[in-house]
């Protein structure tokens, strides 16, 4: 990994270096603006650290190759943007169903469709959670700076290994090309979660008796003769397309995230102690809302910022409790209301929630947010 100390990195490069620091040794991807720099950087860096970069023929091939490499034993990732993420949805479901640890970086751009390839958007939030079919849970993380791009990539890999679940890292075009100072810690200070493997094929019987919330993974090439399938399956991995097995398996796939939501959810609170009005945002919009909050405080308004460092699982409990303490919530996002819908749902009508939307192409300017909040106070 990079030498400890200060480096001047863009969001994309920080993502790539964060992956290497986290132990990622396989990248299978396809070029797409604005994520291509991640692929380009890793194509150079991964062979240097004994890993593999392979450019697949499309995004579908990419995500499936990542699943294959993960089962081979490597920490694996891919990077894409909106259109590519759409293509990956079916096999994101495969990764969830087979409990394959992996990381997908989505550098969001203006959508829908081909949209604005070179300009910011934040419209993939709902797709990140609901894009694939069937009931399932994933984890989605949202950094706000190149520093967080580095740090949170490590967290993303750790979470994916700990919960055997795909983790999406949602950045956006502004953040991906933003160059800033990034402090890289020495390798010895970075805590990595190691994958939990089964010790012997007898572990299958143990799991068949009682399926752990997060079962250990069978290792490849060591005589376990495991079978994994996207069909509903039992703890041995064999297809079992019955109602009982579906209840057992799918409930567990969701519960392993839902029941651990408290450990996963991560909110960055800024000036929240006595806040009456809360600004909610994520990604590149974070700076605008923080700056707006500072300006509003200077005018005597008790404004705070609740920034989402994780988007999924959603911080439902946090916002539910927050709704008892504040008088209004604003959600600023570069889409037509996605996190906004979740916040509205979470507060159960206890407090008014207002959306400040931008369709795409530009993030909110601090003065726009200040004006919007002032209108509400008037």
């Amino acid at each position, binding site marked *: 990994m990079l030498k400890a100390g200060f480096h001047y990195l863009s969001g994309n490069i920080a993502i790539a270096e964060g992956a290497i620091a986290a132990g990622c040794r396989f990248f299978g991807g396809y070029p797409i603006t604005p994520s291509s720099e991640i692929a380009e950087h890793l194509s150079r860096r991964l*062979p240097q650290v004994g890993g593999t970069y392979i450019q697949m023929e499309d995004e579908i091939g990419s995500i499936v190759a990542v699943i294959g490499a993960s089962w*081979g034993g490597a920490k694996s990732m891919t990077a894409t943007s909106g259109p590519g993420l759409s293509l990956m949805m079916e096999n994101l479901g495969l990764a969830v169903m087979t409990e394959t640890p992996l990381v997908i970086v989505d550098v969001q751009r203006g959508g829908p469709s081909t949209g604005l390839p070179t300009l910011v958007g934040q419209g993939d939030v709902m797709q990140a959670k609901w894009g694939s079919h069937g009931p399932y849970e994933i984890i989605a993380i949202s950094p706000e700076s190149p520093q967080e791009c580095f740090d949170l990539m490590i967290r993303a890999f750790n979470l994916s290994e700990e919960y055997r679940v795909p983790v999406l890292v949602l950045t956006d075009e502004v953040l991906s090309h933003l160059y800033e100072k990034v402090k890289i810690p020495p390798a010895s200070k970075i805590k990595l979660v190691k994958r939990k493997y089964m010790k012997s094929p007898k572990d299958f019987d143990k799991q068949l008796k009682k399926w752990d919330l997060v079962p250990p993974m069978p290792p490849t090439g060591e005589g376990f003769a495991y*079978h994994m399938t996207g*069909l509903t399956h039992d703890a041995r991995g064999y297809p079992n397309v019955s109602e009982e097995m579906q209840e057992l398996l799918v409930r567990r796939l969701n519960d392993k995230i839902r029941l651990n939501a408290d450990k996963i959810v991560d909110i960055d609170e800024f000036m929240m102690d006595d806040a009456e009005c809360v600004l909610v945002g994520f990604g590149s919009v974070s700076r605008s809302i923080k700056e707006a909050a500072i300006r509003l405080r200077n005018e005597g308004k008790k404004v705070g910022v609740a920034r989402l460092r994780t988007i999924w699982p959603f911080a439902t409990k946090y916002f539910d409790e927050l709704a008892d303490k504040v008088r209004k919530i604003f959600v600023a996002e570069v889409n037509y209301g996605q996190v906004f819908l979740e916040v509205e749902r979470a507060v159960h009508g206890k407090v008014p929630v207002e959306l400040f939307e931008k369709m795409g192409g530009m993030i909110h300017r601090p003065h726009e947010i200040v004006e919007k909040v002032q209108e509400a106070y008037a």
Partner: protein
Amino acid sequence: MTVKFVTSHPMDKYLRTERLPHIWCPGCGVGSVFDAFLHAVDSLGIDPNKLYIVSGIGCTGRAAGYAKFDSFHTTHGRPIPFAVGLKQVRPDLHVVVMSGDGDLFSIGGNHFVHAARRNNDILVVAMNNFTYGMTGGQVAPTTPTGTRATTSPYGNLEHHLNLPYFAAACGATYVARWSSLHVRRLKDSFEEALQRKGFRFIEAIGPCPTAWGRINAVREGIDMMRYLRDNTEIRDFEDPKNVGFRWGEKIIVGKFKDEEKPTFEESMAELREKLRRGLK
């Protein structure tokens, strides 16, 4: 002399016997190909812990679930990229893709092209029963022109792929076509292919009595097997461009290509080594 009735088979060591009987219909061609494959693995004495089978969706795709190796049953059309990803991380394993014609050449066509082009070190076994069997017999890119399928009830208007030609053109280094009838040749071909490196492709033509066969006058598996006996000709090293066929005409089988060229995995390993030495 009479037969002796027993309860286990020598190949049971490679089968998840607790899951038998398998779902393949009486007269299905997949079982014979699968049988020949396991015998080949046995003859070679390959360490079963170092063989990995990847299947897609479809009848042939179920093979992964019956073979007692580390195995993965992927989504439709995607066994090849899975195998490619796995091979990058585990070049020590024999990675075998076993899937059907629709899975590999329709939805999975793009992945086939590029894995062959890169010369990824995997063996792809394509069971060709001219149809999408599991879903009831819809037309596939390999359904012979003019023959019927549930979604080409008036006869297939399209031209079917010449798979060995396609594979050779994409860059496969070992290309062969056999059938469920030519089990001995198929077994030998598997043995050969498992000892080679590079993108190896073996097509196995066989019956689907329940779907394609039933509406194309080869109602039972045995009918299609008799057809194959009477209408196939072995011509090793025939130019793959000449092995296309029309239903009703001779089908040429054989080993068409057997070459060597650096695999993607070898080149990547060389690069890593070069960089490692350069950085020291």
